[in-house]
């Protein structure tokens, strides 16, 4: 490192170095590119207005960064401290954020409401006792589902769901989807053309379709998952008393709007030959009878969601999935073995939010797509058997198709 007192040389070197730096900095390579639209689940639907974008951003912040603490109302008993900690990147969750529901065995209601039901808040602030699962209480575990494309599912009219339903299996195909008729809370706004049967509404969110709309789901999540009281769900999960709201109506509504405006997952490599062949097999062996490939939305206050055809691969209906998936616990009029068909869009991106691996089915018990298929029983049994009898190559193509979603 010889001392160099000559003026021009160092300054040349210096400006040379700076120039290389600036060149590199201006180069696209230097900054990681945004992942392709089909590689991530979050992001808004196309065609929103600036006003809707602003609300989407507010909801995004409340959903992902709105972490509650003891000072802002968390708990005192809870499961997690923010929506985003269970729904990372709006994708499916991990066993550590799995909820336990308990106490209800049939449609007559929950027997354990006085003992912490229907949801176990197994975490507590320091100095408080968390809830324990009461002995003998029927229970089930729910792994967080992905939150994408929910606005489209919300805008599908009740009539379309009823048209897919076949409660008494009139067509004799062994598949008898039916809606979960639930008692909806007073604060919901019925969607146009909503069907009411003996005062009950069609639920469409949650593993057992026990939530009517995204406001119902969101207000319950604040209350039951985080111990955050709102004016919608005003009874504190711990004390059972009315409590002061800990989240504003505006924030709740922003989050609801955010969920509605999340884009539908974008399929990757839709024209790959394996994907196309796999999709044909999927439909041929009857998977599409429950995982309905295509739904069409009706009217929606959000223009971008109205009258759109989307491909979620769900009928939003309940199906009896057999004894293997029967945990003995239920919600609304759903029987213990009945589960709402989960949407399959976004399935291939699940590991990106589940810590690098798959945790599928309602409680994350299936560790791969094949595993999830092999656990289909009940109404799903015939198509499962047909899957088993496919050649290894055909099975691979079918799975390849599911991964592309």
């Amino acid at each position, binding site marked *: 490192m010889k001392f160099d*007192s000559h003026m021009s040389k160092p*300054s040349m070197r210096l400006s040379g170095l*700076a120039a290389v730096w600036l060149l590199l900095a201006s180069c696209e390579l230097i900054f990681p590119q945004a992942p392709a639209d089909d590689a991530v689940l979050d992001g808004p639907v196309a065609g929103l207005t600036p006003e809707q974008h602003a609300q989407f951003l507010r909801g995004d912040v409340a959903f992902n960064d709105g972490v509650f*603490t003891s000072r802002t109302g968390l708990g005192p008993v809870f499961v997690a*401290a923010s929506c985003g900690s269970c729904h990372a990147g709006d994708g499916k969750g991990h066993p550590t954020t799995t909820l336990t529901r308990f106490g209800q065995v049939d449609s007559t209601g929950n027997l354990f409401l006085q003992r912490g039901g229907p949801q176990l808040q197994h975490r507590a602030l320091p100095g408080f006792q968390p809830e324990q699962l009461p002995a003998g209480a029927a229970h089930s575990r729910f792994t967080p589902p992905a939150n994408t494309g929910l606005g489209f599912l919300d805008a599908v009219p009740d009539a379309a769901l009823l048209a897919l339903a076949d409660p008494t299996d009139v067509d004799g195909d062994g598949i008898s989807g039916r809606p979960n008729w639930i008692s909806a809370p007073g604060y919901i706004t019925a969607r146009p053309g909503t069907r009411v049967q003996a005062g009950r509404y069609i639920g469409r969110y949650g593993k057992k379709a026990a939530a009517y709309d995204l406001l119902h789901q969101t207000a319950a999540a604040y209350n039951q998952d985080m111990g955050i009281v709102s004016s919608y769900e005003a009874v504190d999960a711990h004390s059972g008393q009315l409590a002061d709201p800990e989240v504003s109506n505006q924030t709740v509504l922003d989050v609801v709007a955010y969920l509605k405006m999340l884009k539908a997952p974008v399929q990757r490599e839709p024209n790959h030959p394996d994907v196309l062949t796999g999709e044909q097999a999927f439909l041929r062996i009857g998977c599409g009878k429950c995982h309905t490939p295509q739904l069409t939305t009706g009217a929606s206050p959000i223009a971008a969601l109205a009258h759109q055809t989307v491909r979620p691969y769900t009928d939003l209906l309940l199906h009896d999935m057999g004894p293997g998936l029967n945990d003995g616990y239920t919600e609304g009029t759903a029987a213990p073995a009945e589960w709402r068909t989960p949407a399959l869009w976004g399935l291939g991106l699940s590991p990106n939010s*589940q810590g*690098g691996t798959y945790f599928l089915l309602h409680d994350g018990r299936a560790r791969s797509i094949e595993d999830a298929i092999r656990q289909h029983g009940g109404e799903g049994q015939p198509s499962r058997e047909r899957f088993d009898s496919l050649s290894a190559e055909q099975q691979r193509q079918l799975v390849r198709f599911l991964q592309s979603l």
Partner: protein
Amino acid sequence: MKQLLALLLLAGALPATAQIDPVLLRRVPRDTSRLQLNMDAVYNRPFVQPGRLPVALGGYVEANYQYAATDGVSEGHQFQMRRLTLFVSSSIAKRIRFLTEIEFEDGTKEINIEFASVDVEFSPLLNVRGGVVMNPIGAFNQNHDGPKWEFVDRPLSATQLLPATWSNVGAGLYGKKFGATWVVAYEAYLTNGFDDQIISNTQNRTYLPASKLNPDRFEESFNGVPLFTGKAALRHRRVGEVGVSYMGGVYNKFEDDGLRLDRRRGLQVWAVDLTSTVPKTRTVLTGEWAWVRVNIPDAYSPQYGQRQAGGFVDLVQPVMRGTIFGFDRAVLNAALRLEYVDWNRDRFAETGGLIGDETLAVVSAVSWRPTAQTVIRLNYRRQWARDFLGNPPARTAAVQLGFSTYF
């Protein structure tokens, strides 16, 4: 607040008089006769002493330009005034001195008394210090002045694992013993400590810096239990310095008004730090690693980890020394920082897998020091941040160009 204003007025008034007659400005000669350690950093700064006043003034400022993007999303071009810090020191008597450091961060968003202590020297081996002291955990906390570093950002492990700058009201002892080519030193303080925000914060992770948000901490201890911080350091004239430090205390309010609220819950922090210069190449190596352990209630959120660790290593290589742009003692450095923080080293109870919540970064830098006290630095940062579940990391890149200078 009033005292602060008075100090600021004083600080403002003195340079004003100085400006009238710059001859009155006297640079306080720095003590170079003895080996300096990280713990001496507070006093080892350029000060200006106006006239014969027993007060010396100093300070530093740092500002920068930044363009950063995470996974393709950028907030655009940012100009940032990171901090403006003023020091006032005074020799009250022969072996009694006072120094304060007041910092304005991000404009005036945060105003902190980082340091305000009276030191009384009984012997080199026994000094008493009291007031607002900087807890000697790691080396960065005490040696954090912007102009000393080639990087625009402070190390993640120093600011987001350890809570630099972490100062508290308290008192303690320090001293040194000198040999021919080495010096050993110790420091031990009792101060106010942490509060329960370390496990209840919007970061949703065990986060020691969260306690800095407690506005009462200079006035009362959260739980009445003092925080102990101690450090031992050894410096060899040629080899460099190593330090080992410990900080421990109770962070929760286990009792109020004589009523029991919870068990006592403790936290312990250990750190090692190292500073060394490779004589042949003059490469400067600075590193620090810290381990944190916090007692977290069993039924609390697993987001809050019981164990954390992290640190950094900086390599600074002078590539050119001499006259550059007419500054005759200028130095051009190339530097590299590797840093890593794992905020949660626990395992998932449900799966037995390792919890994520960790960040790795590599920062390369070119810095130009026209004088020893001023640095102009260009940084390029690449960072990978994994969330709690260990999902694919968010990738960040940033280009920063800024300066930091003592004044």
